[in-house]
């Protein structure tokens, strides 16, 4: 096979990923420094566009609200594993983040007097948990779509340079500093080296390690995986959020906005079971609680359907006009994919793998950390791939769209600041060697293992062993399975030997990242012998603040995983029991 052609580019700021976080950063860097945005998808295909419900900000447009309450909710929602300085920033800068978007043209829904309308969302309350508050700014149930479009529109306006359908496969480090990224051009099979003074990772999540997920096929955690392979740590990887209301069997998300607008979860007997689990805010309790409650109903035999394996989301009492105006897309999903008419029939739902709370550790300037304190100069991460940590053990709905905007913007600002005073780190001669080796190995392998089979086995074991409920045994089982899959992955087979648009090859590469991240997730989950937020251990069903009020930090140590801990930043809110 011919050696790929190699191209070299030099930019001040290189942004990997053109989702919400990447493009929000680009809007800050583009006007000030030479910026390239590299994305494996055309920007508006990024999964930010799938977000539905809204973006939290204490605008107080419809009722009294304050950023302090928002901070508290975020901390409490995250089961106190939130870095409170970061959460304060998130809540404080939320108002400006929403105004920025509106000013850029985002068509938010409006109140009768023309201001941005707001609605309720799980875990967001007034005055430290007294009652649900209307804090989520939204545009029907396509808030993420509008954010993604608006950000792309503004990038077009600013003339940002995009390299679309370029897969970043490696980060080139030199002497502990980032020098460049190596990208594979899908259309040609050529390799490109993008040298940058500042490099921002905004590659999104990795939901595809699970079978039932709301995440896109392309969310394979490449960015997180690359950082991991460079020997940098990953934080809080055991915390993965399962969203309560995925379409049963499919995983396609039905936004929490449905419950925000009054939809009710019921079991097979028609009981509103959330009344038992969270008497005050019921269906609007944080996601981890609702997801577990649902799984529990099913376990205890109160699931609906022929196999009693899901519960029901009831919207039938909502006026059709309200459904049409506020939840048009998700009701359409129910109709299209399950053939259920939400006006008159309850919709079968079950928890779906949704959001990675953990990821690349960063500080509040979005700088990537190489251990509990040290910053990697010039390397930034923002969005779902990063862990600031504002979401702690469980992210509140609508806080992620906020996260990508607040910390995307911050990443941009600080990347510019750094690029203005720094020089390019020399790109070593052998910069592309690893990538070439990786690709050629895959392309030429005479293996017998099919990517899709391995991936499916991985996803099955993850759904079975590392989902809403986990135990030491189930995690061990998952680890063993992953080890087996890793071996088989050595003999993976790529049928397409071509250079152009070789998605077969890339799926094989992506599977490598999935295996890495799944392993880290399970390994850290095993070490965290307590239950907190999205991580629930049946063998350790309670929260253990004495031992585990710390972030996990996983390091790659050869082929082993080393786990360390990092203290949580606490400012105002001491850990309390989480009751709703």
């Amino acid at each position, binding site marked *: 096979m011919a050696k790929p052609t190699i191209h070299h580019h030099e930019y001040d700021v290189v942004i990997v990923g053109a989702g919400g976080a990447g493009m929000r950063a680009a809007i800050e860097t583009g006007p000030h420094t030479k910026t390239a945005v590299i994305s494996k*998808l055309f920007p*508006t*295909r*990024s999964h930010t*566009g*799938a977000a539905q419900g809204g973006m939290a900000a204490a605008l107080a447009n419809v009722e009294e609200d304050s950023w302090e309450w928002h901070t508290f909710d975020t901390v409490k929602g995250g089961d106190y594993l939130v870095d409170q300085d970061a959460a304060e920033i998130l809540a404080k800068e939320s108002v400006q983040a*929403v*105004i920025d978007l*509106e*000013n*850029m*043209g985002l*068509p*938010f*829904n*409006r*109140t009768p*007097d*023309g*201001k*941005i309308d707001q609605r309720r969302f799980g875990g967001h309350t007034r005055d430290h948990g007294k009652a649900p508050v209307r804090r989520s700014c939204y545009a*029907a149930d*396509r808030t993420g*779509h*509008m954010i993604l*479009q608006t950000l792309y529109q*503004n990038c*077009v*306006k600013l003339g940002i340079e995009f390299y679309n359908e370029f897969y970043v496969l490696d980060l080139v480090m030199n002497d502990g500093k980032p020098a460049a990224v190596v990208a594979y051009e899908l*259309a040609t099979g050529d390799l490109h080296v993008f040298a940058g003074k500042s490099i921002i990772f905004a590659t999104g999540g990795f939901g595809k390690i699970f079978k039932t997920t709301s995440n*896109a*096929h*392309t969310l394979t955690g490449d960015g997180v995986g690359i950082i991991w392979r460079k020997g940098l740590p990953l934080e809080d990887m055991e915390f993965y959020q399962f969203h309560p209301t995925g379409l049963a*069997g*499919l995983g*396609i998300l039905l936004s929490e906005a449905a419950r925000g607008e009054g939809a009710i979860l019921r079991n*097979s007997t028609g009981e509103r079971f959330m009344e038992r689990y969270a008497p005050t805010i019921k269906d609007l309790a944080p996601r981890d609680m609702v997801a577990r409650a649902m799984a529990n109903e099913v376990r205890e035999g109160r699931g*609906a359907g*022929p196999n009693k394996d899901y519960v029901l989301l009831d919207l*039938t009492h909502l006026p059709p006009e309200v459904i049409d105006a506020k939840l048009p897309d998700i009701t359409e*999903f129910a109709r*299209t*994919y*399950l053939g*259920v008419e939400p006006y*008159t*029939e*309850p919709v*079968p739902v079950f928890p779906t793998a949704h959001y990675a709370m953990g990821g690349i550790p960063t500080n509040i300037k979005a700088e990537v950390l190489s251990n509990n304190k040290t910053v990697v100069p010039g390397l930034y991460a923002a969005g779902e791939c990063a862990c600031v940590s504002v979401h702690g053990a469980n992210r509140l709905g609508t806080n992620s769209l906020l996260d990508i905007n607040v910390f995307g913007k911050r990443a941009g600002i600080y990347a510019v600041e750094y690029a203005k005073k720094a020089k390019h780190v020399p790109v070593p001669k052998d910069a592309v060697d690893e990538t070439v080796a990786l690709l050629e190995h895959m392309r030429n392998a005479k293996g017998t293992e*099919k*990517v*899709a089979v391995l991936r499916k086995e991985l996803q099955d074991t993850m759904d079975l062993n590392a989902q809403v409920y986990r135990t030491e045994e189930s995690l061990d089982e998952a680890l063993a399975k992953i080890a087996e899959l890793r071996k088989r992955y050595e003999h993976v087979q790529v*049928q*397409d030997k071509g*250079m*152009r*648009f*070789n*998605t*077969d090859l890339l799926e094989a590469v992506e599977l490598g990242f999935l295996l890495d991240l799944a392993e880290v997730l399970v390994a850290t989950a095993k070490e965290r012998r307590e239950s907190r937020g999205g991580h629930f251990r049946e063998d350790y069903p309670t929260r253990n603040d004495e031992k585990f009020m710390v972030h996990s930090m996983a390091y790659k140590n050869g082929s082993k995983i080393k786990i360390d801990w990092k203290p949580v930043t606490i400012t105002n809110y001491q850990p309390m029991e989480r009751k709703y």
Partner: protein
Amino acid sequence: MSDVKVIDEIPTYQVTLFVRRFNQEDGLEARWEDFDVTVHGTDRVLDALHKIKWEQDGSLTFRRSCAHGVCGSDAMRINGRNRLACKTLIKDLDMTKPIYVEPIKGLTVEKDLVVDMNPFYEAYRAVKPFLIASDKPEKERIQSPEDRERFEDTTKCILCAACTSSCPVFWTDGQYFGPAAIVNAHRFIFDSRDEGAEVRLDILNDKEGVWRCRTTFNCTEACPRGIEVTKAIAEVKQAILRGKP
């Protein structure tokens, strides 16, 4: 609560897909290839394509991401009509006949179902698809719900190109801006906060602009987001005639 709908045991079916293949690298002409796949009742055409790629022929190439109709990656021609593969349930097609899947028309085929989208994006960018406003408000700009509603329909566009590549005028010489670009211009022309309507109307009052639309409605019928595309185009035509939105 009304009766619980029982979703019965999901049946499986055997279907044949005819997929239009083309790869510059193998030197062959574009051709049809057939694949037999077993599918479930809830499977979409995208699932069938995945099954082919994952189990039979890894070189089959197509774009996809979200798998539920929101990212706009997988517009293709299914049984002669433009649809999103991820929104087309196989059981809704006539399964007694083979299912024909081919790339969208009017854009150069790169490989199998992948086409060169650049001309499409270029037309989109040409209409200045971004808010043009000179004021610098401290808070949000005020906009009444009615004004907001005025352009609601066209904000839904996911740039999938199903419309533009279904348009007979676009097929002829590929110079026409195409419905998607006009939809995205409409999105801003009728936004009460925007000040750039005149510029956009001028751009679309071009030889290749709105006047080339012959109201064939293929675009409206193809749009997976249910946007009333032809209506939006008609509104832009009216606005150009009036000289203002």
